[in-house]
């Protein structure tokens, strides 16, 4: 069985540090008004951004689970 350094540590680091950058980006574009949540189109884009983050985290998590247990 691969070690924690091979399997889950990179995942947590990627979505931990990467997640910090991502959240910082969301905060800045919302606070600056660059994304205007009153607009329907912008609300759609905000959901796409959050969904994209989850989508990639799921791809990696499922990939690790498949490698370890399938």
């Amino acid at each position, binding site marked *: 069985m691969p070690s924690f350094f091979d399997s889950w540590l990179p995942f947590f680091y990627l979505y931990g540090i990467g997640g910090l*950058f*991502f959240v910082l980006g969301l905060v800045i574009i919302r606070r*600056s008004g660059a994304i205007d949540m009153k607009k329907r189109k912008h609300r759609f884009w905000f959901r796409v951004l959050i969904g994209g983050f989850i989508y990639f985290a799921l791809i990696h998590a499922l990939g690790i689970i498949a490698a370890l247990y399938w």
Partner: protein
Amino acid sequence: MEQINSNLESFHNIGTTTDWVVMVAYFIAVMLFGSYFGRYNRSTKDFFFGGRRFAWWLIAFSIVATGVGSHSFVKYSAMGFKNGFSSTMTYINDWFFVPFFLFGWLPIIVYTKIRSIPEYFERRFSPSARFLATILLLFYMIGYISIGFLTLGKAALPLLPESFSLFGMEFQVTLMGVIIFIAVITGIYITFGGQTAVIFTDLLQGAILLFAGFLLFFLGVAHLGGFDIFWDILPTEWKLPLANFNEPSSFNFVGIFWQDGVAGSVGFLFMNMGLIMRFMATKSVDEGRKAATFNILFMLPLSAIVVGNAGWIGKALSISNPAEVPPNTVPDEIFVVVANIVSSPGVFGFIMAALTAALMSTVDTLINATAAVYINDVHRPIEAFLKVDQSDLKKTDRSELVAARYSSIVITTLGVLGVLIFRDFPTVYEAHGYFHSTLTPPLVVAIFLGLFWKKFTPAAVITTFVGGVALMIAALHYPNLISPFDHGIEMNPERPYSYIRALYNLFVCVAVGVTVALSSRYLKDAAGRIRNSEYSRIIIYSIVSLSVLLFTLILFNLGNEPLLLFQALLLIVTVAVSSEYLVKYDEIAQTEGLTVWSVKKAKEFFKGGKINDREGEVIHVHWKLKEFDEDVLYFSKNDMAKMQAEVGDLVYICDKRKYLGGLKSVHSVFGEPHEEDGIVYMNEENRLNGQFIPGRVLTAEKEM
């Protein structure tokens, strides 16, 4: 087969005559296809930007070839062969910076109508910041072209004989010889094609590329005996999607995260003029967002399989049948070796042609983009300095188009010469990683802080460029400076910290930029004192001369480590003070519409008036010609009401046929309405720009 050193085996003469016929036919077809679209270049705007007219799907697919080419199949197959599925890492780590891009950088570059990244630096900071950004950007882009040529050469070499005879003379086939030959073909193509040609050839190639990549994967799996056998044969470590955290030094997760996931992703999205010009070629910011999102969410993960699978198949084959694929095959050749084994003659030629042509497209895109930077940031400023008469716009545009074509040739030559720097790395992947770690951080940090932080000043950006680079050079001389950031990665003395170097470089650039920006008050005091001195000119010239001297000392490392660090810190102070003294900066005017905090203002500047955000319909109209000079389109009152448009709003009209993806379209402004519903009046210039065909129905929509 040849032993290139004590451990690795290299191949030559792979492929048959049928494969060569297929490859040559493919290349000719692609070049003819591209040349056909070259006729859509009516100005430098069209040559470089394709006229800001295309639909998102066309750009999204055209980016596939660029993305796959730049993160090429040669290096990812090599990494797949050495490390397994974790070769896909760099394709699936770009999302973190997408919010910054979609709602920060993209609207700013479109709405401010800048034609290159350095131009942004002039408007946001100063001409000197633009000058430094131009130098760094040209280094970055020419380096990228060099990596592209190196990859192309390594892909082609196994297909060729070790030597050939011509007129009775024996010629050795060398990597540099192959690269020069490829560069000549690439240079000819881009010189006569332009951006529209590149977009359309990339569109065609994007689709073929995905098909060829998956074809190879299915053929490979079938060759092994099915997916279950392929899956079970690979060791567990090879199936993990992320590499080991910090081992080995040549391929580890944390180094690659900072090198590619941070510096590379930001560099690719924010600095890669080739890619940015694609997004700027979309008809609107929202279409650009769709293109970028679709590409990152769907195309990049698929591309990761396309580019890496030959390596995975190669690994499985090297375990199941080492005689077929020796485990010590040169990693950069594994793609060609596997493609040849699993496919039949002709199919192999097709796969090679599709993937090599896509890589060529990437190089084309980059050459085109670098030429755009040259025209905008070198040619035009020089013409302005020399006070060349530019009153005749058409004549100026023609001369710039000629200059763009000549500069493409020079850039191609420099790209070939740049290969000499990278060719000694064991794999293209490591060469590219080292390149990203070293060249992207100063510009990445400068763009980011300039775009998202209003308090970031010209003194701060110039010091980031000079002082940050000085500290980066210090770490090139003394790699132990990087060790506090190494996350436990072992230092390879031959190529110290190829990837994690990016974290150190980013850190020093951010530290320099933020410190100088926060010290603005003290710097202003210092600059004021110098101004008030009767020896102000002597003092400032002395400080500038000292800065040049210090940078030279750091560059050539004339001293020891503590002295070098002292020189770098002193340089930061002298550059910050002299920039504060010399650069004129209006904090309000030079941030309005140029940072994420004033995107709405940027939109108003773009339109030239208040924004009309009411959502209207897309209508169908017939067009008629009328003689007038203004750049406007005349619609009926009812049609304008349907579009919720007012006189002076921006309008986009396009041939109704959706499969053209906006090729025949034009942007203009709503003029005074008439009474004929379903009719739009335009002048000859707009008809020519839109390439509209008589009798064809157009769609019209309000842009803003």
